[in-house]
């Protein structure tokens, strides 16, 4: 089934303006809040406040959390494994860029 072209639609860069509470981030990821808390405890997501009720996440946390959840679900790895995978993926990306710069 095909529909006509919709739009033009104007979007906003979510990462630039969004500040998310724990409730908002868990709703956007469609997971229980405890899931997000586990991601914070594992260091996948970082917060500055101690008090959970005052946790605020940048918009970029949405994509990071979703990637973590996809890895966990699709590859059946536990959270420490997910955290390690994310760190290694970022390191690979950093090395790729560095190598290209120094060509």
């Amino acid at each position, binding site marked *: 089934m095909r529909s006509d072209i*919709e739009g033009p639609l104007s979007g906003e860069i979510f990462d630039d303006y969004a500040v998310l509470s724990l409730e908002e981030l868990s709703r956007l990821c469609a997971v229980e809040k405890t899931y997000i808390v586990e991601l914070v405890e594992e260091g996948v997501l970082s917060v500055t406040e101690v008090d959970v009720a005052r946790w605020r996440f940048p918009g970029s946390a949405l994509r990071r959390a979703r990637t973590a959840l996809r890895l966990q*679900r699709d*590859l059946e790895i536990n959270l420490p494994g997910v955290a390690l995978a994310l760190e290694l993926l970022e390191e690979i990306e950093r090395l790729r860029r560095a190598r290209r710069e120094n060509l």
Partner: protein
Amino acid sequence: MEFKDYYKIMGVERTATEAQIKQAYRRLARKYHPDVSKEKDAEARFKDLGEAYEVLKTPEKRAAYDRLGQGPRPGEEFKPPPDWGSGFEFAGAGPGAGGADYSDFFESLFGAAAGGSRPNRGFGSRRRPADRGEDHHAKVMFDLDAALQGGSRTLTLRIPEIDGEGHLAARERLLNVQVPKGILPGQTIRLAGQGASGGSEGKPGDLYLEVEFEPHPLYRVDGRDLYLDLPVTPWEAALGASVKTPTPGGVVDLKIPAESRAGTKLRLKGRGIPAASPGDFYVVLQIALPAARDDQAKAAYRAFADALPFNPRSTLGV
């Protein structure tokens, strides 16, 4: 319809045990997971893999699939046999893999709802006001020009939807999106109200576009900065020169300082991806040597060697 050889996709024999199938799935899933793999067709392969695993790990589905035999020869049309599916019951959980829609082949065998009937399923229970529409998420590719200049791009999204009979089907949606100037790979664009429609009084969900860039033929992207490899001749590098250089804003005359070396980075401030503090444009010099094919070129190289005795390996102790 194309016959899918699930054993071939998983790289296992038709006699493989459940443990071998699980092992093969795990190994290939790690390799082709779209968040991990840089391979171009990773997404498609991962989807095939999830579908193959869904069939082969479920004894009833595997038995039914095995009854099809080896399938038609390559290129032949596949049609399920008329008595297909009798005596089997396909119910149960969705695939481990996240693909929300299955191939036509899978659906002709097991029905559209066989893998679980909720779009975007997978992250566990959904907690939101019952009447608010679901959010949708999609990965999209933009060209670098979209980030540099903004402008509209037409996207084709596959939206999983439940039809009137409760089957999961993918609807193609063409969307014209105004790309925000300065967007970076890895960022997300939110289109408010463009997700699934809500209940009778509920608001629609939002659409989130996870942005990646197509590789640019000339420029590399690192954060907001852009990099260009610029070939120069040995004499341009040694003596300095002004050379024509492509930049996102058009061709400029770039001053090459004397005694430049390969790898020298020249910065054009603020000519990267736009923002309140825009990125920079870096030119990385590469020394290109003219070929020494004819006598004249060879003579020139010899004259050069005679005039400039030079041992580039002195630091190697030879």
